């Protein structure tokens, strides 16, 4: 039976750990709420953007933007993988990476090469071990990602698409279903899937400043950026939710551990007292 002092030290240390995990849980809870709000705030922009692009493509059937054209042969694909910067978030990143690997294998099976764009430090650490071709990366976006931190990385992929270096572009991130559930989601960014809008009552066209083609490409670029931004924000919400659950489990486990150790400690203490008593009684009897 270990000494009472060691057990007491161990209990104190587990209690400290529990304090940390509980604090992390609470921080994650409040950050998750804020991230969810940002997710909601990003929605109107994407919706308005979809409507405008829908109108624009309908009004201009003759201009085919490279971002809308579907290429028949796919030699290379691009994947934007959104991951977290920090760990302690359960299996969140592992699930996203697993999904990405499945997507990679699927396309490699069809003979396409894969080029990656990594958002988040964890993705960088994972995929660099795989010797995958990484075109661009950005990390340390913090709990409040900004569009301006993503523009560069997204532009690399858009340029690669326009120059024919990639023929499809996918986006993988952790989808926030609810607090308990986050699942990896795969979405195709390029070519932009046809957007269906309400049928316009009569044919009309905009006045353009400058040309329609230029505006359409500019809008499509922003549309894709806004989708990557939404993915980044959603990923933060998922990260916080996953961390919250993971830290709650850790706090509960620490509690269990403390209870068990407290029992052992009590037994050890009583055993020591009994032993001392027996010795005193024994000593007295000998005298």
């Amino acid at each position: 039976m270990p000494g009472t002092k060691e057990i007491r030290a161990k209990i104190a240390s587990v209690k400290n750990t529990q304090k940390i995990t509980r604090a992390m849980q609470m921080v994650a809870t409040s950050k998750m709420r804020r991230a969810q709000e940002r997710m909601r705030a990003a929605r109107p922009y994407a919706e308005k953007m979809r409507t405008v692009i829908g109108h624009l493509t309908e009004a201009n059937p003759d201009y085919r933007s490279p971002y809308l054209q579907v290429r028949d042969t796919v030699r290379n694909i691009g994947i934007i993988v959104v991951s977290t910067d920090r760990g302690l978030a359960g299996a969140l990143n592992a699930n996203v990476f697993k999904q990405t690997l499945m997507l990679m294998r699927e396309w490699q099976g069809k003979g396409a090469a894969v080029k990656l764009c990594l958002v988040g430090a964890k993705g960088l650490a994972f995929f660099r071990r795989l010797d995958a071709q990484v075109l661009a990366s950005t990390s340390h976006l913090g709990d409040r990602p900004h569009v301006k931190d993503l523009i560069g990385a997204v532009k690399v992929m858009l340029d690669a698409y326009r120059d024919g270096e990639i023929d499809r572009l996918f986006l993988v991130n952790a989808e926030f279903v609810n607090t308990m559930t986050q699942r990896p989601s795969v979405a195709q960014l390029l070519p932009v899937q046809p957007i269906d809008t309400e049928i316009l009552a009569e044919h009309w066209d905009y006045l353009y400043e400058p040309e329609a083609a230029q505006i359409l490409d500019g809008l499509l670029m922003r549309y894709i950026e806004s989708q990557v931004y939404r993915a980044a924000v959603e990923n933060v919400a998922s990260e916080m939710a996953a961390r919250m659950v993971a830290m709650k489990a850790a706090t509960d486990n620490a509690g269990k551990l403390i209870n068990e150790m407290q029992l052992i400690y009590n037994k050890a203490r009583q055993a020591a007292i009994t032993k001392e008593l027996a010795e005193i009684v024994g000593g007295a009897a000998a005298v």
Partner: protein
Amino acid sequence: MADPHTIHVDIVSAEGEIFSGPATMVFAPASQGEIGVAPRHAPLLSMLKPGEVRVQTPEGPEQLFFVGGGAIEVQPTHVTVLADTAMRAKDIDEAAALAAKQRAEEALKDRTDHISQAEALAELARAAAQLKVLERLRKLRA
């Protein structure tokens, strides 16, 4: 739209909704010069330059919003301003793209940092544990 003398204005950016409500007149810095939009304006689509969007609300003062660029869509009954949150220019975007590429290259070249740091830490922890065991053994033998 119920009231023919106003036009509904939505100003949104990727990071949030900025303004939504009726207006009697809207001014925006279009790429070819400032434009004023009155209710029942012809459909128009234009890119915006960085500048201010002014919205005259029916009940009160003019409201000012700064936009870093973006696009404006005008329809007879509503105006949508899709504002950029960041300053955009061809060379700024180019520089950002270059930086993203460089980060990827550096991270791939520099295989030593994070992973090996984590490995080194794990190694250290293992060594410390071994040392402890050795010390305990020595005590037992002594």
